């Protein structure tokens, strides 16, 4: 089978539709993962032992099982208990929860890296727990973790093809659909690869910049 440029131009608009969905899912998933990760990181530090342990176990479980299976679960099993999510929403929740367990580790490391003296100074300033978190600890903890977070968002981007299993029409699904229609796999799959590589390379350049910008803290 030969490479066919005409075919490439023919399917390009369809694939671009897929790229849009892929990027949308990544962006929404990233936001959710950032929030969920923070929730898990804080929850695991809760003085309530049972809560902390419970959240810890759930996070470990989610991190130790495949996203694909989780997506099936969210999409096909949750409706049985009355939770019906659209494919994109289910996909974003799956990505967000799964990657939230990764970003939680990043947050944890970032928080642990804030020196103990900062907690003590906050206490000596009589700040409340909430004020200590929002004004003292997180503002110091978050900038150094931005590169690591970005890293996970790039990884998430590359896992969006999983969403095709729950009928989200992202890039990979569009490509498969094109392949199904014309019985040609070479061009669509190669193009998907090229799209991913191109976006990843741009993302890596961006990441280097983030590392440069936020990677270090002055004390």
């Amino acid at each position, binding site marked *: 089978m030969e490479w066919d440029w005409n075919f490439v131009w023919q399917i390009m608009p369809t694939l671009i539709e897929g790229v849009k969905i892929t990027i949308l899912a990544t962006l929404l998933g990233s936001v959710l993962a950032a929030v969920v990760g923070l929730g898990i990181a804080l929850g695991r530090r809760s003085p309530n032992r049972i809560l902390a342990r419970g959240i810890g176990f759930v996070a470990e479980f989610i991190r130790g099982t495949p996203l694909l299976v989780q997506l099936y679960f969210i999409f*096909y099993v949750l*409706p049985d208990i009355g939770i019906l999510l659209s494919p994109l929403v289910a996909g974003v929740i799956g990505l967000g929860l799964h990657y939230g367990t990764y970003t939680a580790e990043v947050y944890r490391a970032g928080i642990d890296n804030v020196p103990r003296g900062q907690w003590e100074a906050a206490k000596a300033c009589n700040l409340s727990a909430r004020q200590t978190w929002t004004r003292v600890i997180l503002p110091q903890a978050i900038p150094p973790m931005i590169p690591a977070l970005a890293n996970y968002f790039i990884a998430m981007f590359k896992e969006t093809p999983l969403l095709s299993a729950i009928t989200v029409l992202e890039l990979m699904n569009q490509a*498969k659909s094109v*392949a*199904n*229609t014309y*019985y040609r796999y070479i061009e669509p799959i190669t193009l998907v690869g090229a799209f991913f590589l191109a976006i990843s390379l741009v993302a890596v350049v961006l990441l280097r910049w983030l590392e440069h910008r936020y990677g270090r803290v002055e004390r």
Partner: protein
Amino acid sequence: VPSSAQDNAKLEQLKAQGFARVAIANEPPYTAVGADGKVSGAAPDVAREVFKRLGVPDIVASISEYGAMIPGLQAGRHDVVTAGLFMKPERCAAVVYSEPVLCDAEALLVKKGNPKGFKSYADFAKDGATVGAPGGGTEEKLALDAGVPRAQVIVVPDGQSGLKMVQDGRIDAYSLPVLSINDLMKKAADENLEVIAPVEGAPVYCDGAAFKKGDEALRDAFNVELAKMKESGEFAKIIEPYGFSAAAAMSTTTAKLCAPAQ
């Protein structure tokens, strides 16, 4: 004209390796996988028997998406597709088919009472109704050809998912061949669902064993044995328990089914 077995290199190769690699779909009753992992179902059973007669003792089935079957055949991943891959002119151009094996009409799975009154695929083109179908399958093409926008034809990975999506109200209807839908319904035993069959305007389709272009000799040998089985009634004995009609398959020919639509 059936060629003699002597110059059928592909068949010799299959005999030598002792099995043929067949692609099947995960779609009862065309295919079924028992709790013991044994592959059965109408299409593989026919293929198994034909190959046995050709001197190839067994088949090794691999489950595949419809869309991946023809590329897989072309890439040499399978020797033959026996999956309810219905004959259509484009497909006939891409592969070589045996004489018809399993025939079926199309059906729709909808909510009880068919609230939106679907009768044909064209009905989905109106007011944004959605229809689910297997990716790369016949139903997807029929819907698209009937003018349903791409965004309203939802590619669903397998029948069970399609059933679930109708139950959950994610799609308005799910389309598969009649027998497949009936099988799904039987397993689901869901009072709130209903089958619309046949879909108006959709032709009755037959599948055949699909071979890679260039394997015409093998196909011809396959046809010879298939014809003998049809004649002896053995064919009917294999497929009718699954609900298929042997008469339907014997009443038409590949040449007719592959002819470009009028």
